[in-house]
């Protein structure tokens, strides 16, 4: 075990996969010599060589296309899109190509691409360094969509994503790279004393499709992913209500049993995400929860999300769901 932040945990996963599988190659903007703008690939080019870890031209559509071709010809490419806001030039290659190849070719071809991308707000990044576009990929058949939240699950989930023969979009909450974020921008701790920062130095996996029960309680189920997991911890604490907190970890396919069992137990459900409300993945969760748990529900399902607006710069703390909005939503479920 070693204490790692999310950056170190992701670096460890990549390092181990480069060691274990000669078909793993890593490329993206600034990820080679420099080690990435968030340092996730620091040292990997020096250790594994410039043909396995390299900088790419600034062309996200090209990065995705190259990964597609490499993946169908025996490699296991892991690419970085520097900010998930910049993934859209690659959207056609991801949605129409990478996601569809196995199906459209009758299973004769597939491409096991992993696309890592930092997402979410909280770094004063304005609307083009802060978005959380997971629902624009959960709506695409053929992709698996993962959103890590801690050093421990970052490493285990990324290892699974790389080993997976399906394409995976892997979101990393950039606000939490160096410490869990509980919603107070003036008090951001590091991962140093956090139990989920104790990370095995060796290879391990966390299965895709399994949620993580962060804490247990009888009165309400709170579902979140990414940075919001930690904000929900604070929100639950502030609410004074005993809650199950489910970190979904994988959005496609999401963990049906974990969610259904919890909501059937608590009869209440609050879903929290940073992304805008309309057509956010919370809408899918809310619909699925009512389909499966309607007769257990004691209160309307609550959603606490980013607003249906562009993500702001200096007012980002009024945009991102914070502990007070989450606590209020939890308390509303108790009043019904």
């Amino acid at each position, binding site marked *: 075990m070693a204490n790692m932040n999310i950056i170190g945990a992701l670096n460890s996963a990549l390092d181990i996969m480069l060691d274990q599988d000669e078909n793993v190659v890593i490329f993206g903007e600034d990820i080679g010599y420099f080690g990435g703008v968030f340092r996730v690939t620091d040292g990997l080019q020096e250790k594994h060589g410039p043909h396995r870890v390299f900088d790419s031209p600034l*062309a996200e559509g090209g990065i995705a296309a190259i990964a597609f*071709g490499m993946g169908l010809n025996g490699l296991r490419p892991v690419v970085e899109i520097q900010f998930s806001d910049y993934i859209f030039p690659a959207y056609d290659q991801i949605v129409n190509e990478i996601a569809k190849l196995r*199906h*459209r070719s009758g299973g004769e*071809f*597939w491409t096991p691409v992993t696309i890592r991308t930092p997402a979410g707000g909280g770094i004063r990044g304005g609307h083009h360094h802060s978005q959380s576009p997971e629902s624009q990929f959960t709506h695409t058949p053929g992709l698996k969509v993962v959103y890590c939240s801690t050093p421990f699950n970052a490493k285990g989930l990324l290892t699974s994503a790389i080993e997976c023969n399906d394409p995976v979009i892997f979101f990393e909450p950039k606000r939490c790279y160096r410490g869990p974020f509980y919603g107070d921008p003036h008090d951001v701790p590091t991962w140093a004393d956090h139990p989920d920062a104790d990370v095995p130095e060796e290879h391990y996996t966390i299965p895709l*499709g399994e949620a993580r029960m962060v804490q247990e309680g009888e009165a309400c189920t709170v579902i979140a992913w990414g940075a919001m997991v930690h904000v929900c911890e604070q929100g639950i604490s502030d609410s004074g209500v005993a809650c199950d907190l489910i970190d979904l970890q994988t959005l496609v*396919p999401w963990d049906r049993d974990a969610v259904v069992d919890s909501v059937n137990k608590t009869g209440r459900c609050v879903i929290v995400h940073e992304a805008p409300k309309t057509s956010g993945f919370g809408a899918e969760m809310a619909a699925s929860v009512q389909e499966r748990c309607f007769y257990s529900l004691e209160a309307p399902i609550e959603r606490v999300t980013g607003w249906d607006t562009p993500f702001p710069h200096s007012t980002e703390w009024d945009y991102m769901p914070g502990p007070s909005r989450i606590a209020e939503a939890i308390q509303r479920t108790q009043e019904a």
Partner: protein
Amino acid sequence: MTKREPDPTSEPYTVPTAPFRPGDQPEFDSWPWTPADLDRPDPATCVSEDTREHAHGLVRVLSEDNLASGAWDPGLDADTLRRGLELMVLLRIFDDRMMKMQRTGKLSFYMRSFGEEAVAIAQTMALEEQDWIFPTYRQPGAQFVRGRDLVSMINHCIGNIEDNVKGRQMPVHYTYRDGRYISVSSPVGTQFPQAVGVAMASAYRGLDEVTITWIGDGASAEGDYHYALTFASVFNPPVILNVVNNQWAISTHRNFATGGSNFASRGLPYGVPSIRVDGNDFLALYSVTKWARERAGAGAGPTHIEVLTYRAAGHSSSDDPTRYRPADEYGAWPGGDPIERLKAHLCALGEWSDEQQEELESRIDEKVVAAYKEAVTHGDLASGPYPPASTIFTEVYEEMPWHLQEQREELGK
């Protein structure tokens, strides 16, 4: 706000026009290029500057007298030429039959390669069997070179129970892994940078494999074209990047795809050796592709080729080109017809005759008709049998996740 004085003689910006529209008499300038024009640089050491004349000129081998000459004459034996002719005739007859099937409601859709038969056939014949083919919908002929069974192709076009892609793709969107023919995709241009990735993987793995891909003149306006050139020029993998300039992208004339003088020369500033070739000259196409293959095999990297040709048919069975171009424009095309030209060459060599051609055409027609009859025994468009409905849910992922299992159960089939 200031406004310029209106000038009725100038336009605010340039909107290109097609040279000829319905009702016009198409008259193309005769081509100035001859087989003697261009040298054949050493493929292993050639750099883009060495190909400036090749990008702005035109590599040709067959001349007006139907004989081969010049530095690019590949020196093919008569058996190889006859095989090329046979496969091109097969493609044309196959297309004609399939188009008839579409017109009589037996196929949902079809796309012909009419006028462009030499492209995929000559170019694939110039490659090694381990090389990857990354086609558009206008290169089905490569599969003939790689030995694909006609019945299997027709099964796909029908979408019957034997369709290897299980009724998931429109006709002509073939997948043929055994022939290293990668799945065709409808979004135009996406395969171009993907092919660069395939080639990079071959190079990484130390395999003697080259990847060839094509894009249309129209799709060369897509970002994907430029991604491919950028990554190819930066990483130097063994890839052959062809722009098939067939003059038309549905109704959009090629002069909407670039304001430049031609397509080949767009590769030069990328630092990629670039050659324009007469796409209806089987020997020139074969030769240029062989040269590009030699470059790639020698580790010299990518080649960018403009294949100058003419889309003699409509874009697809849904298109009516008489709405936007003269009906007889193909007849005026200076490049002639690829089948007629190779046939005339073989006849000029004394290696072929009109009688042999007739015999060939009738033999192939019988073969295509027989293949169609066999294919419909596996299901026709009207009544199937089609792939089982459960195949909607399979191969979306390697293993079917729970939500697809639930939806499959809901479908109940």
